[in-house]
């Protein structure tokens, strides 16, 4: 908002210094002829410190998200007498992922990257997910943006609601997923770790890079899972096509011996 003074980033590093470091690292990451020297080494240290600054704000957001998730979970099922709570976890973005993102978006400023700190909640239903969103608003969380990949799935088939919030001068991404959406996303990540083809494991299958038939298989599987989650039928022709692709991509899914 114009005229408001923002809380500085908890790392204590100015945005201009962070952005300068980000620019240098983008250069180094994308130009293979550049050798790592002290300039790039110093820039890496700025990046590490900037990321470390997200530690406490991220923790606060994760703890708050978990409270909302537990309250929102209408049906707390018990498995063998044990309460099963909605799962809430966090991560600090990996440096190679930060650099890949800077490379993918040549005008992006590192200080404005909104998912260096991220957390996610996995809920049983879409209604519970939307309940969390309501609780965020009611509790006056500073919501910067909502990316609704349920209404508009990514081209890869990815579905979830991503809420970018600002906490203590830090941008944090909150991913809200149903179990079905999460199962799919984890399956893609799991496959990316396995796939031999460097384009998939290195740049990320989840961004749609990889063997085309594998990308297509996951996209259709996501559509079918979303239909089933909404209680809609998957027609026979569509189902046949997915199962056919599933056979085709089997070599990519097999564990290396």
């Amino acid at each position: 908002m114009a005229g408001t003074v923002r809380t500085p980033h908890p790392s204590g590093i100015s945005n201009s210094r962070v952005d300068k470091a980000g620019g240098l690292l983008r250069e180094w990451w994308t130009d293979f002829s550049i050798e790592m020297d002290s300039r790039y080494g110093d820039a890496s240290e700025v990046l590490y410190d900037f990321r470390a600054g997200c530690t406490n704000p991220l923790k606060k957001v994760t703890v708050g998200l978990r409270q909302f998730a537990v309250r929102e979970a209408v049906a707390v099922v018990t498995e063998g007498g044990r309460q099963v709570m909605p799962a809430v976890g966090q991560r600090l973005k990996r440096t190679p992922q930060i650099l890949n993102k800077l490379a993918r978006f040549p005008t992006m400023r590192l200080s404005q990257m909104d998912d260096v700190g991220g957390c996610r909640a996995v809920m049983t239903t879409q209604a519970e997910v939307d309940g969390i969103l309501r609780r965020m608003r009611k509790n006056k969380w500073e919501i910067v943006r909502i990316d609704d990949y349920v209404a508009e799935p990514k081209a890869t088939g990815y579905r979830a609601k991503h809420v970018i919030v600002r906490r203590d001068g830090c941008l944090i991404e909150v991913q809200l997923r149903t179990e079905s959406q999460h199962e799919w996303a984890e399956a893609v990540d799991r496959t990316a770790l396995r796939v031999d083809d460097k384009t998939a494991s290195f740049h990320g299958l989840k961004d749609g890079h990889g063997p085309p038939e594998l990308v297509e298989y996951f996209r259709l599987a996501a559509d079918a899972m979303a239909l089933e989650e909404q209680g809609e039928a998957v027609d026979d022709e569509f189902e046949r096509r997915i199962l056919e692709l599933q056979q085709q991509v089997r070599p990519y899914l097999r564990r290396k011996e």
Partner: protein
Amino acid sequence: MPLHHFLLVYDLKRQELVKQLEFSDGDEAVAAYSKIEREHSEDHDVEIVLVGADSLETIRNTHAHYFARDVSREGSRYLAGV
């Protein structure tokens, strides 16, 4: 909720977790994260990540792909074998 931090090192060639360190202090965890990333900055055969939750059990769900697949969980038939 006490938050536990887990520093995971996944070996892409061996296709398994080769290191798993636990921290209760967030600052210590993030210092270890930077240190290990620095040591592996030219190594493309590992994936290093710092995650956190109330327990490792939760991480096995929220970041399941780093762990051996839980075959007891029944998933969608569209993802069978993935």
